[in-house]
């Protein structure tokens, strides 16, 4: 294993891989730092540029974007109090306070080094666990995969902040989109309305771009209502210089917190459908509960920054495990990463590592190397990164939209996908406006075919429907999905009760 890893590292330090990795990380950090531009959007924008590269080059770039994006959010979160990405929300709680209290350099560097440590801990897990988990995944028959996908969908529907009903409806809508076109087994056409283009089914990438990039940018445009720029004044004179050793020691002197939050990050990454923002919030919450000084949280304690940043970067490692071993995307970001793997000719799943060892370890190596590159870029460019946020959104968003449209076109070089993007952009915008969460929808679109295929395979293998429940792993997974829905119901009810003061909750 270590030989393979060293070979992978030796491979990736070649200029032809290092360059895309560096550029990817840079773009990821910038995208992550830009408020309103999510990691998902950044990955979508970068992906078409990697089409012509060899698989490892392309994947090195994508890995860089993912790692960079998770760290980039912290710059604006700490220095401006605006999380560049949702996964940096918890970083503002203490990071921004500490920066305001006159220690912006310390706050920033604690965040950067915590990201670095968390990311590397995630990497250790990624390298160690992917193989064994892939062997477990091999034991998964169609029943287990079916139940696993159902669990992923129900978790996402239950965990969204909106109502459970809307979450489930949104997921269902996503599943319906996948039913369009030829059926996956014998190619009978369904819901095609006689339109030839629909006969081939709808590619998920234009849908994803439409729903995530287009619809979200539209709401941002609406919010800014014109040519306004960020209202926050950037204090360019802020002194970011700080003793690195002291900062690193501040993190390493809290090994227990660091390990625990990294563990939470990895765990949430491995579980399908939860994502980085939940990881950092949960880790922050945990760190506060376990701390000897919980009252210091929110007043600029380093522990708060460490918890948020270490966990959201560890989360990246965890979710890469799930993509590589099971072929299941955890959230929107990993869904695009999975799409990137497929576009580069990789069938992720139980056999990926054993069949493509060189490529798999190349990705591991790229993941590890992205971290020092990230620190380097931030060390040189943190100050510049702040300037980026002063770019008027009126300039930024049209540029992102154009890149998204080009990306949709470049996927197959057909205009049809651009129309798909437009249709789903409008649909996504409508969903945002009416309070339907987007994540269950997109997960439905991504998992729909696999759910259907595995259902068909199960029944073709054995007509007995009870096998879904009587096979222990499958039954356990289905039970967990029922439990997750029940838990969501309970939680919504409790929130409703808290809010209204009465036990009445009509809208769950």
């Amino acid at each position, binding site marked *: 294993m270590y030989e393979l890893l060293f070979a992978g590292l030796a491979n990736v330090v070649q200029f032809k891989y290092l360059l895309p990795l560096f550029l990817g990380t840079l773009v990821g950090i910038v995208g992550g730092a830009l408020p309103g531009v999510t990691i998902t959007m950044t990955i979508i924008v970068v992906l078409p540029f990697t*089409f*012509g590269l060899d698989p490892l080059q392309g994947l090195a770039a994508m890995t860089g974007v993912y790692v960079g994006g998770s760290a980039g959010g912290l710059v604006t979160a700490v220095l401006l109090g605006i999380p560049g990405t949702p996964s940096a929300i918890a970083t503002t709680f203490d990071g921004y306070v500490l920066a305001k209290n006159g220690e912006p350099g310390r706050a920033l560097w604690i965040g950067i080094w915590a990201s670095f440590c968390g990311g590397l801990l995630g990497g250790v897990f990624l390298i160690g666990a992917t193989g064994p988990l892939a062997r477990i995944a*091999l*034991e*998964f*028959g*169609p029943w287990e995969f079916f139940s696993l996908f159902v669990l992923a969908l129900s978790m996402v529907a239950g965990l969204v902040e909106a109502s459970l009903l809307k979450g489930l409806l949104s997921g269902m809508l996503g599943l319906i989109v996948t039913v369009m076109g*030829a*059926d*996956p*087994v*014998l*190619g009978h056409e369904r819901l095609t309305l006689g339109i*030839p283009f629909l*006969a*081939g*089914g709808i590619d998920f990438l234009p849908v994803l771009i439409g729903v995530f990039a287009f619809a979200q940018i539209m709401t941002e445009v609406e919010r800014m209502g014109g040519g306004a720029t960020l209202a926050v004044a950037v204090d360019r004179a802020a002194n970011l210089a700080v003793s690195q050793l002291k900062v690193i020691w501040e993190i390493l002197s809290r090994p227990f917190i660091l390990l625990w939050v990294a563990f939470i990050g990895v765990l949430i990454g491995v579980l399908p459908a939860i994502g980085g923002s939940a990881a950092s919030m949960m880790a922050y919450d945990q760190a506060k509960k376990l701390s000897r000084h919980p009252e210091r949280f929110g007043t600029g304690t380093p522990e708060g920054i460490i918890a948020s940043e270490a966990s959201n970067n560890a989360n990246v490692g965890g979710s890469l495990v799930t993509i590589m071993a099971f072929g299941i995307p955890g959230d929107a970001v990993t869904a695009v990463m999975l799409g990137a793997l*497929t576009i580069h*000719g*990789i*069938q992720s*799943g*139980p*056999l990926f590592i054993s*069949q*493509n060892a060189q490529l798999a370890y190349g990705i591991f190596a790229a993941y590890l190397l992205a971290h020092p590159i990230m620190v380097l870029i931030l060390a040189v460019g943190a100050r510049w990164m702040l300037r980026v946020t002063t770019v008027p959104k009126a300039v930024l968003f049209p540029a992102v939209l154009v890149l998204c449209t080009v990306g949709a076109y470049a996927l*197959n*070089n057909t205009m049809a996908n651009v129309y798909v993007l437009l249709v789903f952009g409008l649909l996504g915008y409508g969903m945002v406006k009416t309070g339907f969460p987007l994540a269950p929808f997109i997960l439905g679109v991504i998992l729909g*075919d696999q759910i259907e*295929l595995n259902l*068909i*395979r199960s029944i*073709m*293998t054995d007509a007995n429907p009870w096998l879904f429940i009587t096979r222990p792993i499958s039954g356990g997974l289905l039970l967990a999905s029922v439990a997750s829905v029940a838990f969501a119901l309970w939680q919504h009810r409790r929130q409703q009760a808290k809010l209204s003061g009465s036990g009445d909750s009509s809208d769950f």
Partner: protein
Amino acid sequence: MKRIVLVALALLPLVAQSQYPDRPIKLIVPWAAGGDTDNIFRPFAPLLQKHIGQTVVIANVGGASGTKGAKEAKDSPPDGYTLYAVHDYIHSTYYTGVADVTYADFEPICLISSTASVLTASPKTPWSDWKALLADAKARPGQISVGATLGSTSHFFPALIEKAAGIKFKYVSYEGLAPRMNAILGGHIDLTDANMTQKGKVEAGQLKFIAIATEKRNPELPKLPTLKELGVDVVYDVNRGLLAPKGTPAPVVAKLESACAAAAREPAFAEAMRKQATDVRYMDRKTYADWLKKNDELNKNLAKDLGLLKR
């Protein structure tokens, strides 16, 4: 000045035409990456690229027994920038009614390889040889599961064995060799059509080869019996070639043909195919066109014999 620019612009398409190829070429592989078609065209693509002088990008378009990719290829503009990696399934999926796409919707460019089918069993099955499998299949008709791309070659091959040996299998849809390998290694299906590309897994004890569908034993694995010597009269191989959408201009097809011929002759391709236990089998477009026609007739009869003919 303005007029000159306009004339220049008007001439641009002509210039572009004469300089084919001036942008990357997409090669549609209608199955998942890591399957055998993918494994054969991945080493071929860079060689084709070398001789055609443009980037060749493989696009894996799986689904509906490989016919989703076939439809996409058929509907692509016939300009030589979309190619299609095909094998015998194009005939079988047409006659079994999976798709309306036939070989006649395309311009043949060249045939490049031929891979013999091997009947392969999961390591979790109890049989060590064909005799044990046959006895079990007779005892439990319709219970031994076979993973197959329905209506395609991996369905035809076991169906031919069924007919020759007088047994009955149960079919489960697993499209392409890569997902079938996942399923058979985990023991979720019992049997499948595979080929010598999976030799490494057999040596590692992850798979069991039962018999090969060739006339003579394969020198790479001389211990593996042929179906014929076991009394099952089935010889079956899968032939892979390149097609372009119908209406692709003749000069473009000619250019592709000569690049394909040069690529198929490369020692690197021979070496890659040797590792996959696949024969390099080159045919120019004329020979390939005749061969396709004959093969189509053959598959129609096969579908009829197997009771799978739907048109």
